């Protein structure tokens, strides 16, 4: 008799291994693995200040887009199928199998996290190796650096799982909405002017309202060294991080539980 589990080994095998064997995912994964070390090599060789150039290369690992794309590679079938949203219509057959919707969410989350983190760990090791080979002694890699990457992988995997479990169009709209809410605040705060016409002020207030309430939903990368040095100063950051992580997973399970898989049910 089968028992419900939190993780499904079939989903894990196919998302972490079988998919990567296909060139459409395999090549991007290799690019993510190899690109930072390649950049380290060419930027240092080409630079008059090699230590400063090397520091810039390490900042690649702070880039939110990398985490989002890696989560996308390991969670969605999009690249394999040539469709942005992958193959959501395969879910109806999947859920006739002994796979609970909670198990599906956690398995995908696990794949997103483990896949992204593994790729970045290999990438860091390669970059470190290249840096050492070309004589760069200063590097930021320590436990806090690795933990920052792990935490970033976790939050972006959870965020992508949340988008992935939505009906296709809604997932895309939510992505645009949350990323818009995050970036629009930065743009609007620059352009504030006391003499601006009232209408524009109202528009700005409306946009800042969304930025205030939803601007933190789209994940930002976390620097663990900040938290380690000043835990209490980073309370808000920690609360936002933990609440977002749990909220994404909860909403993913909740949405998937509500979804029906039949004609036009979405």
């Amino acid at each position, binding site marked *: 008799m089968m028992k419900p589990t939190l993780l499904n080994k079939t989903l894990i095998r196919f998302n972490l291994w079988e998919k990567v064997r296909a060139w459409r995912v395999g090549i991007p994964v290799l690019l993510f693995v190899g690109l930072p070390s390649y950049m380290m090599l060419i930027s240092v060789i080409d630079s008059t200040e090699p230590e400063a150039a090397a520091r810039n290369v390490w900042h690649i690992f702070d880039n939110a887009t990398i985490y989002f794309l890696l989560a996308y590679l390991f969670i969605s079938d999009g690249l394999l199928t040539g469709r942005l949203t992958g193959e959501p219509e395969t879910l109806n057959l999947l859920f*006739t199998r002994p796979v609970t919707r909670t198990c599906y969410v956690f398995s995908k989350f696990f794949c997103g996290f483990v896949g992204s983190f593994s790729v970045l760990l290999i990438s860091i090791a390669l970059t470190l190796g290249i840096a050492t080979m070309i004589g760069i002694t200063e590097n930021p890699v320590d436990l806090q650096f690795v933990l920052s990457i792990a935490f970033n992988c976790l939050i972006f995997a959870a965020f992508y799982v949340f988008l992935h479990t939505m009906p296709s169009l809604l997932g895309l709209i939510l992505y645009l909405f949350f990323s818009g809410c995050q970036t629009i605040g930065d743009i609007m705060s620059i352009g504030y002017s006391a003499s601006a016409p009232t209408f524009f002020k109202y528009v700005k207030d409306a946009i800042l309202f969304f930025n205030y309430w939803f601007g933190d939903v789209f994940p930002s990368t976390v620097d663990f060294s900040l938290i380690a040095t000043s835990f209490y100063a980073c309370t808000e950051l920690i609360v936002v991080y933990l609440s977002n992580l749990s909220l994404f997973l909860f909403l993913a399970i909740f949405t998937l539980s509500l979804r029906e898989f039949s004609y036009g049910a979405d």
Partner: protein
Amino acid sequence: MSIITVDNLSKNFRRAKIKAVQDVSFTVEQGEVFGLIGPNGAGKTTIMACLLALIKPSSGLIKIEGKSPFDFDVKPLIGFLPERPCYNRWMNIHQFLTYHHMLSGRSSQDREKDIKKALEEVELDIDPTKRRVKELSRGMLQRIGLAQAIIGNPKIVFLDEPTSGMDPLGFIMIRKMLLRFKEQGITAIVNSHHLLEVEKVCDRIAFIRGGKIEQLASMDSFALQGQEVTLSWLPVAGKSSDELSVLLQQIAKEKNCTIIESNLESAKVSSPNKEQLAFFIQELIKNELMVYEAKSERRELVDLFLNKGENK
């Protein structure tokens, strides 16, 4: 004991304001091949989706082996062929069948054997590692869909339009598969538009229209409801067309049959059952009509389909 019980099942799609299924009740016995037939949009696939726990019923009760279809223990018992073959297109056939074999919880030791057996069963003679799902024709997709439906060794198989996109050999393969299910005690729920196929293999059918079951009966009882046969005989010497017509009408009346149309060498006869038809033919022979052919029209389900449509 019934393996599937459906009691007053209703399903409304609120956004579309459609009552897709209304107060549907039926039971399915173990080892039975049960057909759901009806025109497009009748609610057949919605009933199947409720049975598979893919959608939540608005009201009513479904039990599969005494448990809710949402119960985790029910899932390993089920195999499903969806109407639309939306499979993981990036996988090759071997990966696809491995995926479903693993998902169904079967032992990894039996995997290669089970995959080979399933491919033989659906008569797909290609190297499963060389062809991707996205490269397959509609008929071949249907065959690998059937292979994944049976790969977990299910106790109940749900087949939504199994003959869709199939060539005549595919029809025969599905018929053989359903007959094997009967032999092995596997229950099958078949949703099909191909009425002749349904007639040949189903034990019982439910005719569905507008989300309601309009008729639920065994195929035997359908066959007894009416039998239309065209009889042909060798030319009769010394009898005019009128005389022959009177004779046919007289025998038909005695044997409780109806002459639909007749000429000098043949007649189309409707009888209430097979026995009456046999008596009718016997009487023709006694009256020196040398009957050499009897062609059964076997239009029962088609008639049901058409007549119900006309009644609406």
